[in-house]
């Protein structure tokens, strides 16, 4: 979890109090002078209550969502559900093994593409500050805001249309493109925590850039890199839109299976959708928890 630096959000340091800060303080003083303390306290209490009311309103649907997924999905879950292939509608005993394997394969392609590329681009940004690096950083920022469905269409245009077939490779490519900007930015943020002095010390010892990158930069940035990449992975695992136009059949990816079964009127299909959703939710939560605990342990070890 990255925290915003005070300088990024605040209006500036105290010694050089800008006009804005002066005006703001004037407003406070005027407020205090004009209105009685009783009235100010009353407004404060009212606004505080309004803010506190927002907590249950906002948290309730999120809790309801998780509770519904767990309670409805648990009914579908069994060992057979995980290891059997899907059966046609009406035939009992189907599972989601093909979807789990397919999703695993897609994610493996995506990781194979995005993790090394993300590391090297981040190293590039770290070692070569300048106009090229800033434009690449800008491109990464823009890319991380591109909707996933557009990346799906890009993968379709690049792969499916060229080779005239749907493929997990195309889906992996799409997820890789989706993860890449997130990974680059997270890796770079992590590398920024490594002090430039250390890098310079390594270089001055006569080590090559590659050696310093491996032994100093990556070593110091490891907790952040691991966290960032795992979080990006957690996000990619749950994506549906990039797979929509790239995977051959909805039974070959978990998210597509949910999308497909959710819209079917059969209770069996909906049950499968809930079960798959629970598996997916568990997977994503494990990845997120792993990201944070790993960062925590690695942080302690490297210190």
């Amino acid at each position, binding site marked *: 979890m990255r925290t915003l630096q005070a300088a990024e959000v*605040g209006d500036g340091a105290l010694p050089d109090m800008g006009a804005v800060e002066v005006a703001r303080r004037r407003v406070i003083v005027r407020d205090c002078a004009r209105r009685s303390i009783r009235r100010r306290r009353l407004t404060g209490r009212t606004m505080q209550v309004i803010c506190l009311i927002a907590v249950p309103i906002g948290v309730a649907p*999120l809790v309801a969502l998780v509770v519904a997924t767990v309670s409805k999905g648990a009914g579908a879950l069994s060992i057979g559900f995980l290891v059997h292939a899907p059966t046609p509608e009406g035939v009992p005993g189907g599972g989601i093994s093909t979807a789990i394997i397919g999703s695993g394969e897609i994610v493996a392609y995506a990781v194979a593409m995005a993790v090394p*590329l993300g590391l090297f681009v981040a190293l590039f940004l770290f070692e070569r500050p300048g106009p090229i690096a800033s434009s690449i950083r800008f491109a990464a920022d823009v890319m991380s805001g591109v909707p996933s469905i557009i990346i799906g269409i890009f993968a379709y245009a690049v792969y499916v249309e060229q080779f005239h077939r749907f493929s997990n490779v195309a889906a992996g490519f799409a997820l890789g493109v989706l993860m890449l900007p997130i990974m680059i930015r997270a890796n770079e943020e992590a590398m920024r925590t490594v002090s430039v002095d250390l890098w310079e010390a390594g270089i001055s010892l*006569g080590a090559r850039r590659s050696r310093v990158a491996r032994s100093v930069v990556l070593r110091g940035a490891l907790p952040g890199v691991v966290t960032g990449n795992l979080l990006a992975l957690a996000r990619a695992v749950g994506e549906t839109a990039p797979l929509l136009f790239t995977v051959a059949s909805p039974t070959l990816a978990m998210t597509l299976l949910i999308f497909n079964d959710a819209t079917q009127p059969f209770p069996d299909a909906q049950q499968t959708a809930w079960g798959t*959703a629970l598996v997916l939710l568990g997977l994503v939560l494990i990845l997120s928890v792993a990201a944070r605990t790993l960062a925590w342990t690695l942080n302690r070890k490297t210190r």
Partner: protein
Amino acid sequence: MNDPINSSPPSPVTGSVVPGEGGDGPAGLRPWHKRRRLPSSPLYAIVRWGAAGLFAALVIGLLVSIVSQSSQAFAHSGLSFLWSGTWNPDAGEYAGGTLVVGTVITTSVAMVIVVPIGLGISVSLSELTPRWLAAPLSTSIEFLAAVPSIVVGLWALLVLSPLFATDVEPVLERLPVLDWFFHGPAYGPSILLASVVLAIMTLPTVVALSRTALGGVPLADREAAMALGATHWQVVRRTVLPGARSGIAAAVTLAIGRALGESIAVALVIGNRPAIPHSLLAPGATLGSAIVNQFAEASPGLGTSAVIALAGTLLLLTILVNVAGQLLVRRRGGRRLLGVGGAVV
């Protein structure tokens, strides 16, 4: 990192001159600009530059392929594809106007819901609630940011939608003043439901980011306000919120970007009717939901090109929002903004 290229031992420094890469001649005889270069293996430079170049190529390739593939549709409907006309492939009408309207409406309604609630939660967690309550609550809300959109969509379709049809929408219709927004039959799937789903999906992001921004306001600022005689709420209202505004703006921009681009969950609950909606209870369609529904059945040629043109329109919309957000934050004295969100969720 187990990298065969980099496994050569660090070269020793000989004399006062740093040895360059390769072995072509003694370092002292090289021209000055080469002499000053840091030791590096050429392979590592190639890999680094190659990775950067590859990423740049991906970004440019994405833009080029979307633009080139949608050119046929733009040639057919003109640039007004972006803001007028409707989507009716059966009648040969390919234009994104109604879908843009649908996208803007759902996103706006979602923001109307999520911004006050999200800010209220962030202020509560950061300023009002005791630590033993705030810490676990904010951690779990941050975890919920990782819930896949398809899971939210599934829940919204199978649980929330029937609830809306029987309980929520009939009640809204009976409200006295707001019936201009809420009228017509209650189906369940509707623009309102899609907006609520978008609000639920973006809430964790808004809370996580704006809470971080609120927490980043320096203690000295709060103490200064208190010293001036401000009440607790006045400190929050006059010092903490203004101090965190660029972070909050970043959070909202990121949420708008997510809401505009969300396609799958919206496609499940919006009812998919590309027309200018007369009420929030009516079914509608957004750019994302239309792409999801139309791409598979689009006729080759113009049909496919038109769907890709919808994607191009969506891309334009999200880039506009992001750039506007960047400018807003920069003018207000904040620094970078987009990377902040990418790093957190």
